[in-house]
């Protein structure tokens, strides 16, 4: 079986629209997997990853399969927010009622590094507020790609 890091990156690339290289380059993979483990439990993370890694019976898209799954869809959407914002968003009560509760499942910023690594800043053509300064006057130039 593939390493769980590889599965997680592959799934995350499908969810976020950023290439595996880009995601690995953020340096956040291990921290995010560990965070998921804290919120869900390591066992549940493995189930989540294998739900993605098993090719769908109908030969369709594995990312879509996860997103449509009643149990894993809400988790997958939170993984997208995690990569884009560096924050974890608590799962709804209804999810906990069926799949179990976790005291670590709260809205929170994962870490100072996670905040800075958010893909939202890349998507905006900008930089994380308060970090990775672009230099005097850079704001007067057209954003990347314009």
């Amino acid at each position, binding site marked *: 079986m593939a390493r769980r890091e590889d599965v997680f990156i592959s799934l995350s690339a*499908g*969810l*976020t*629209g*950023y290439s595996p290289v880009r995601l690995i380059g953020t340096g956040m993979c291990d921290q995010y997997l560990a965070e998921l483990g804290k919120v869900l439990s390591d066992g549940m993370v493995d189930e989540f990853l294998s739900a993605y890694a098993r090719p769908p019976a109908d030969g369709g898209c594995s*990312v879509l399969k996860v*997103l449509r799954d009643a149990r894993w869809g809400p988790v*997958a*959407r939170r993984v*997208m*927010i995690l990569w*884009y*914002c560096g*924050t974890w*968003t608590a799962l709804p009560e209804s999810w906990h009622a069926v799949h179990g509760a976790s005291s670590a499942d709260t*809205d*929170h*910023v994962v*870490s*100072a590094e996670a*905040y*800075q690594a958010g893909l*939202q*800043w890349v*998507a*905006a*053509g*900008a*930089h994380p*507020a*308060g*970090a990775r*300064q*672009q*230099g*005097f*006057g*850079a*704001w*007067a*130039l*057209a*954003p990347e*790609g*314009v």
Partner: protein
Amino acid sequence: MTADMTHDVVVVGAGVAGSLIARRLTTEGLRVLVLEAGPATPSTFEGYLQHVQTFYAASGKGAESAWPPAIGAPQPDARDLRSDNGYFVQRGPLKYGSTYTRAQGGSTLHWLGVSLRMLPEDFELRSRYGRGRDWPLRYQALEPWYRQAEREIGVAADVADQTHHGIEFADGYDYPMRRIPPSYSDIVLAAAVDGMSVRLGEDEIRLKVRSYPAARNSIPRDGYRPVGAVDIRPDGLGRDLYLGERCAGNTSCTPICPIQAKYNAGKSLARANPAYLTVLARAVASKLHVDPVSGEVRGVEYQRYEDTSSPRHTVHTAHGRIYVLAAHAVENAKLMLASGLGGASGMLGRNLMDHPSIYGWGLAKAPLGPYRGPLSTSGIDDMRGGAFRARHAAFRVDIGNDGWRPTTGAPDTTVVDAVQTRGLYGADLRRYLESTLARQVRFSLNAEQLPSAANRVTIDPRYLDAMGNPRPVISYDIDDYTLAGMAEATRVYREVFSRAGIEDHTDPEHSTWFPEVPYAGGTMRYHGMGHFAGTHGMGNDPESSVVDVDQRSWEHRNLFLVGAGSFPTMGTSNPTLTMAALALRTADRLIAEMGRSSHRQQPYRREQGRSRDLSSGGYTEDRPPEGLGDRL
């Protein structure tokens, strides 16, 4: 209770007003004690960076997020506004929407730094337009101190951009630093907006996107050296870092500039003469003692705490010849009222003002490149003055460089909306965010508010903080004059959006929560600008003002109340530059007066060799100065 040493001047509050005064007085050899309620802000750069980390890890990234308060010196927080269980006791009818920070450095730790002068006509609102009141001094009389303030706090701007609305500068003067480069979005908007006109009643007003003067380091003029990050190590000596001598575009001026390219009051304290300065942080002034016959202040009682997470404290009294309250408009009024010094005129605490503001936000046709650079570099300020002020409030349009962050909590909320509501993922999600975030734009429309006696700060023995000091009880309303200005501002921003091809997405139902006010059959949502003013207004008449033109209390002649609390009216400029000019003017008055009555005082400690002006030691005392500890 113990009594301690005698100082020339006791200053309450290490914000911008107090720090500027302390710097100027100590430079002239007057011994100054500064009592600061909040925790000491680290004077080492490494210590300061802890606050940057606090900001990174904070879940709400509001103005206070880098500056957690001490139990002993609580402060208002924007997150408490809706639930109404914060530091302020809001009596209504409307909520007062602004906040401030009680830590050494005060609200300049998280301010934005926009530093417009007031207009000449702002000082004469009553004579010119029959509204509000006149100031006891005119623009021309304050102009020399505006120049000094621009140097002290380090303002970047070009005079050529700022001479309009009758603003005059002294011959040959220009700001100490060249203007901050306008943002790409300013440039694109200017191309669309400059020259268009809007009607305000009879007046036809031509619009122009104009660069804002800012207390933020830029390219210096004429030998001026920008003041960057403070780094005074435990050995008392300052290090020259060169860091922060230019703004580097960190895009987080509020709540914290990571490199201190933006002015904060700690820079002024660091440049005071350390031999004549004592700063006591974690010292909450709680009461003034007054001589019942002469009315003169005899001492300031203060509560000293060690632990920021506990209300435990000891009580002391500081003595000086002169007392200066620089604790912020609300806290100055609170301290006077708590000392039973409401005064005969009944004006103390009244006429509280702000700039109630409205947000407009939208999506441009092409990318404007937000989330980069100082949070605002330009505005449209053609509606700051004109004959319409006889009928409704003047206003100013701030152009943001931070997308929809202040209005909706973007970019995070844009991501959440795309994922959760729009159901996007993968390449579609990425494309959507790339296209949307880069086109976000927001305006903030700041209206002038007039003084009204009913808008006030009071105290009530039922509402105390953990150390037993009163919490501010605030009564606040926005009158029709201001509301009409806010309504006109709304109309104007829509015209500007439409001219610039910006699709209006303003939707207070799906945004950060803002208080609402009914108007003309509908409602408007407003936010505060942090521009508290007017609680101890200055005037020529002791019956209708609290302080005179020098900010000296009419009733207590060795007491000065400084800050925007002294403003009779506010105009439309952010208050800090004007407050700084007034503070420097007051310091000069004090020097002239105290210099006459005494010889140069012995310093608290030996003057140290100083490598350069700003790198001076002895900046903050956590403990009392050597040799004086036994008396504290």
